[in-house]
């Protein structure tokens, strides 16, 4: 490139016009953010509409895809959900034991683990695991379909891509999450039991008796409600990022990262809302 042109570019970059353009970027970015938000709300609304159309038998449901995705987010996730929840239960018991033993209240570690696991940790940790595992998988799969023009090919057929691609994933993860939550609860309690019996020499029967006494149905209803909401949130976020990915390899990566980050942050934020509501209701 000729030197004169280089100089012209440098001068252009340094002109007051360029400086004046900077504040303009803020409203543009804000408008883009608001447009994205409006798009996400529209997407959220499409799910119940698609479900209603499905129930009215006006739409073809991709049953095979639904079964495949359900397998992917249930049976195939059992091991990682088990490992994470056993460890979380064990960590809670370990931390609790160190403090409670000082006051001769070691047996109450069962209360701590039972309540913490059933109210909070099983639902939250399982949702975080599913956001990283299944959410990432949903986003990457849909983003790759976007890159390969597969979603365009579905649109050409007049198929509603939200109903055809997002609905089976959202339904699968939403329905499976409460079951995974119960499984996670059992795993967490097992982790607590292992530490209590191994480190504190508590009798397993005493630990289990104390756990049963500490828990009530409200804890499980709250935990299951959370897991249902978390499953819906994680699946919706993943599908939204996947279906709105850029048509490139980088776009697939960005969609996957976005889905995992938004999924995890969303789960924690929603858990905070649940905590406030549960407190207000006296649960």
């Amino acid at each position, binding site marked *: 490139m000729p030197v004169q042109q280089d100089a012209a570019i440098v001068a252009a970059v340094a002109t007051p016009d360029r400086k004046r353009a900077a504040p303009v970027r803020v409203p543009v970015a804000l408008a883009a953010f608001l447009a994205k938000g409006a798009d996400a709300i529209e997407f959220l609304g499409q799910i119940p509409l698609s479900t209603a159309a499905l129930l009215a038998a006006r739409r073809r449901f991709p049953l095979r895809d639904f079964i495949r995705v359900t397998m992917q987010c249930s049976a195939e996730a059992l091991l990682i959900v088990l490992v994470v929840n056993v460890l979380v239960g064990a960590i809670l018991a370990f931390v609790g034991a160190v403090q409670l033993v000082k006051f001769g209240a070691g047996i109450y570690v069962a209360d701590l683990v039972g309540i913490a696991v059933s109210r909070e940790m099983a639902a939250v940790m399982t949702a975080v695991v599913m956001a990283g595992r299944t959410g990432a998988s949903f986003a990457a799969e849909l983003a790759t379909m976007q890159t390969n*023009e597969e979603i365009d*090919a579905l649109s*050409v*057929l007049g198929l509603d891509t939200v109903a055809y691609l997002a609905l089976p994933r959202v339904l699968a993860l939403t329905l499976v999450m409460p079951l995974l939550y119960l499984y996670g609860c059992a795993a967490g309690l097992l982790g607590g039991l292992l530490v209590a019996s191994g480190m504190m020499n508590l009798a397993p029967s005493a630990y289990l008796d104390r756990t049963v006494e500490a828990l009530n149905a409200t804890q499980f209803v709250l935990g299951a409600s959370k897991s249902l909401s978390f499953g819906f949130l994680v699946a919706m976020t993943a599908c939204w990022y996947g279906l709105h990915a850029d048509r490139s390899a980088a776009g697939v990566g960005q969609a996957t990262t976005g889905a995992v980050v938004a999924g995890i942050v969303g789960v924690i934020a929603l858990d905070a809302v649940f905590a406030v509501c549960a407190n207000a209701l006296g649960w």
Partner: protein
Amino acid sequence: MPAATLALPAPSDRPGSGAPVLEVRGLEMRFGDRLVQQGVSFTVPASTIFAIMGVSGCGKSTLLRHVIGLLEPAGGQVLLGGTSYWDGDDAARRRLRTGCGMLFQSAALWSSMTIRENVCLPLEQMTDMDQRQRDARATEVLQWVELEAFAAFYPADLSGGMRKRAGLARAIGASPPLLLLDEPSSGLDPIGSRRLDDLILDVRQRTGAAVVLVSHELPSLLAIADDGIFLDADSKCPIGHGSPRQLLESGTNPTVKAFMHRERLPDAPGKAAP
């Protein structure tokens, strides 16, 4: 075999003699504020193979996406079988779209489905065939593109050329009156490319469909296209109309001449004498 739902004129044996299956009037295409092309007008009668030509990035594939309704034009009209696509409601648009078959540049086969399922899904959506009829039709079109032995394979198990042929089988399965082919020969060896050309001519011969074709491959364009349009990336409008052969023999625009004769543009870099 049930016909596609779009009411279109009967196919003609002579290329170019039928009423228009597709008519594009003064189309303007934009991405946000960026103009892609404007003033694009052409007509494609039944049994015609119409080529969209131009250098990379001039908006050829974008034009196909406007024709099939994946993108909304900034101006102008797209008429399918005489009906304006964007003037109708969603149901009307869906009906019009079922009269189009499209082969995407990447073939765009659904990766979670076998080749047979890929061919059957459009039949399920676009026709009233029952399962048995769909299977029979899928077998027929897969035999046509010589892929019947691969019906149970997944797209990832096929070569690029086979995927293109499977994509063509999927596009023609419901016998649409309008076929849109986005760079069907790209990435194929000369033999595979020629084979695909023969298939396209065969489809036209057998179904009387109008074919709109985006391609860079001159031998292919010269061999099969009856008519065409040349889009210019610089002026953002068409700069040539006519069959590839006419443009080759009598095209006067420097860009068209350079493209058709595979020459450098007059002001292109690297033109300096050795």
